[in-house]
């Protein structure tokens, strides 16, 4: 593609892209995000292409692989344009049917339509599906429409328009002001106002020998929370939106070099980002003299080796510089002295992606969404014991109830909600009583949790909260960099105490010790990881103290999870001796002849629970 040398040339190319694609031309877009790929999206794509070819419609029907559509639970999902018909759980074997329906006047394939489990109604389009209907999709709006590997697709839906707007007549101060007024806050978790961060960075820096002030901008895509995949999906599905935001950031902050720090464990995101960067460079949207406006800006892709702590900004900087990924004390903050000692702005993937939208549609539009202090939309990955697992983009201030029951479709298997863990391992568990809590930065902090990067793990009544706290502590103990003493030793001690409680060896005074340790880590740790590491323990202690006490006083795990405190037994009056449990028992702990009641050898039983799952007459009891 020829290089674009001016803003009108960009608009001309966009016009060509729009004209070149017939809006009425049938197009099958298949989600090829990591979730759907795992469910077989690649096979589906191949099958669809073959079917289209077989039908001789290769020139009439397009088949496209897109980024994540969000509804991972029902993957692989696909859309049929121009109607936007939504199909879920599409297998490669159904490909021919889909293509046939498109050829025969777009009559939808009934069996692939989503059926609302509440009303039993079949949903034709995404808008009708309750999961999508309650969302406000801004960042993920185009994920189902564009091929992330084609910059022309992004241009067609209005991509890089904000770059044209900014370069075409805005001042750097004006851009910062727009971002400040929009009320955008850092989407990485802490919620620092982005505009304030930018103006702080602009106020710092000394001119070098050439009279230029060097500043850097970084996109933090080192998403490491268990159960979070928003940043990955955005980079996989719409990498150009992030690049667009970064170009605007470079203009506003006078940065010549940007970095995207992405986990190497996200191969698809790395690949798509790589392609996107290459295409943007080819078009002259990155590089020297961008669109003939004299702006020079390049982006380098840096792959992280998977340390959780490298998501902390100072550790991330150290990692980019080639040093060990360990945080250093702030102040000085990166906006004063960051990468290579120069003022640096680090923002999350979603923050950068929001910038383009804000500039494009104006700060009034953005600040109209959300609550008083938390503006805009937030992306959550809704996972755990919930019917509709997936990515959800909602306006700030939505209640937990709406998230879980309206969008998430409630708790599966007729169980009830117990808690929601928000904000990854550094966040906290919010109990079911607080279900009407509006989700914004302040409210979550007040409840002892935090926004975090947006992981939302739903737990039902079969979850042991002590075990959950232990799990997160185990994660953090491994991921603590070990540099400062309270975090390194505190996580180890906390894990030891929690393990002890889970095994029924806890003492009541352990709870005070946990409180003390939690306070210590929060107050004295060097970086954000240590300061928030105790949150899962402190919130479970605050809301589920009785559960801790049951483990300690009665040596009972109320949720029947902690292995040392439970016993599996077979009720001989119910057992019909089918032998199903014998087959699944890995430890050969189940004894008994066929058609006679079986018995569990407690010495051999590993308490995996496999027998309970397969037992049809429900003879296996746990106590």
């Amino acid at each position, binding site marked *: 593609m020829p290089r674009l040398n001016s803003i009108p040339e960009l608009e001309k190319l966009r016009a060509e892209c729009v004209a070149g694609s017939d809006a009425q031309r049938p197009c099958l877009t298949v989600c090829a995000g990591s979730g759907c790929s795992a469910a077989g999206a690649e096979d589906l794509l191949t099958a669809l292409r073959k079917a289209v070819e077989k039908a001789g419609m290769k020139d009439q029907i397009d088949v496209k692989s897109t980024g994540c559509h969000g509804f991972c639970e029902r993957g692989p999902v696909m859309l049929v344009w121009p109607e936007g018909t939504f199909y879920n759980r599409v297998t490669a074997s159904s490909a021919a049917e889909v293509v046939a329906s498109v050829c025969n006047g777009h009559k939808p394939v009934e069996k692939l339509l989503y059926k609302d489990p509440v009303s039993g109604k079949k949903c034709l389009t995404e808008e009708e599906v309750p999961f999508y209907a309650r969302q406000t999709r801004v960042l993920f709006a185009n994920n189902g429409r564009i091929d992330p590997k084609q910059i022309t697709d992004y241009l067609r839906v209005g991509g890089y328009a904000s770059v044209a707007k900014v370069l075409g007549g805005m001042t750097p101060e004006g851009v910062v002001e727009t971002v400040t007024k929009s009320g955008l806050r850092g989407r990485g978790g802490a919620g620092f106002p982005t505009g304030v961060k930018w103006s702080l960075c602009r106020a710092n820096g000394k001119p070098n020998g050439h009279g230029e002030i060097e500043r850097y901008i970084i996109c933090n895509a080192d998403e490491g929370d268990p159960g979070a995949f928003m940043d990955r999906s955005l980079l996989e599905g719409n990498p150009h939106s992030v690049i667009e935001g970064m170009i605007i950031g470079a203009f506003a902050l006078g940065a010549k070099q940007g970095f995207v720090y992405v986990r190497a464990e996200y191969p698809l995101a790395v690949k798509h980002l790589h392609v996107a960067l290459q295409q943007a460079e080819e078009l002259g949207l990155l590089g020297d003299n961008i669109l003939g406006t004299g702006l020079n800006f390049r982006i380098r892709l840096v792959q992280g080796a998977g340390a959780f702590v490298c998501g902390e900004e100072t550790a991330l900087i150290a990692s980019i510089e080639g040093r*060990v990924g360990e945080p250093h*004390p702030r*102040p*000085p903050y990166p906006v004063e002295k960051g990468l290579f000692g120069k003022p640096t702005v680090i923002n999350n993937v979603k923050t950068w992606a929001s910038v383009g939208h804000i500039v494009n549609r104006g700060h009034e539009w953005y600040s109209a969404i959300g609550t008083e202090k938390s503006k805009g939309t937030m992306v959550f990955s809704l996972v755990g014991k919930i019917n509709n697992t997936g990515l959800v983009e909602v306006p700030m201030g939505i209640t937990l109830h709406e998230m879980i029951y309206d969008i998430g479709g409630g708790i599966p298997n007729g169980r009830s909600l117990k808690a929601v863990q928000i904000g990854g391992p550094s966040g906290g568990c919010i109990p079911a009583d607080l279900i009407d809590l509006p989700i914004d930065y302040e409210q979550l902090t007040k409840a002892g949790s935090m926004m975090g990067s947006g992981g939302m793990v739903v737990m039902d009544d079969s979850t042991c909260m002590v075990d959950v706290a232990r799990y997160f502590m185990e994660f953090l103990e491994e991921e603590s*960099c070990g540099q400062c*003493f309270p975090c390194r030793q505190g996580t180890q001690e906390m894990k030891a105490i929690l393990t002890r409680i889970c095994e029924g060896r806890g003492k009541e005074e352990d709870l005070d010790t946990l409180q003390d340790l939690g306070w210590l880590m929060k107050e004295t740790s060097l970086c954000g990881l240590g300061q928030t590491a105790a949150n899962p323990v402190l919130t479970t202690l605050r809301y589920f103290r009785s559960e801790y006490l049951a483990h300690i006083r009665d040596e009972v795990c109320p949720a029947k999870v902690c292995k040392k405190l439970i016993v599996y037994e077979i009720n001989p009056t119910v057992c019909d001796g089918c032998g199903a449990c014998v087959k699944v028992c890995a430890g050969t702990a189940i004894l008994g002849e066929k058609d006679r009641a079986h018995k569990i050898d407690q010495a051999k039983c590993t308490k995996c629970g496999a027998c309970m799952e397969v037992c049809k007459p429900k003879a296996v009891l746990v106590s």
Partner: protein
Amino acid sequence: MPKLRINGISVEVEPGTTVLEAIRFLGLPIPTLCHDDGLRDIGACRLCVVEVSMAANGRTRLLSACTLPAQDGMDVRTNSNTVQRARKLLLELYVATCPQSKTIQDLASEYGVRRVRYDTHNEHCIQCGLCVRICEQQMMAGAIGFSGRGHDRRVSRPFDITSEKCRQCGACLYVCPVCELRCQASTATTALCSGCLNFAPVCFQSYDDAMCFLEPCHACELTGPIRSEIPIKKLKKTLSS
């Protein structure tokens, strides 16, 4: 020049001075384990935390004094209740980690640690990083460094082979706050110190009771009765063997 208040005392310092330096300039006591005047601070031990409030926002936070540059309008409290609580809890953890370090025992008893609620680990390192830094910054060798992460983190040589750069100068041993003054006799988990048994042989001059004269040992004072139960002859025998 930044002007700040430390425990109510106004002090003006050179730009670039850390809060720790300002506190020591005033002669106020502040414990540290990872600080050395000739080395760059990393804020690892967290013992020097002080309560800082900025005039601008009025929010108080605990920050490590060694890494905190003195700024105009700072209000620093070096010994508030919060600071004391933090230090006490920290030292309790330190004693659990390295129960045999005299330095840590002394600090612990000074801050009123009377019992340790954690299992003791008998580690030989608190990862203050002094050895790594002195090797790199003063001896210009860089023969040792940190490897691993979290609980696996430790001071080590590259690939666990003695580096050619190591001149065996012993600076790393010299600065270590833990392996220096290692108490060999303490085995009891409840007592912090069972006497200054490790100051052999000069510790026992012609006193009636074993009394360490090196530093006033707070731990000794605490656990005096336990110490006096050990006959001096037996002590000397243990030490000479």
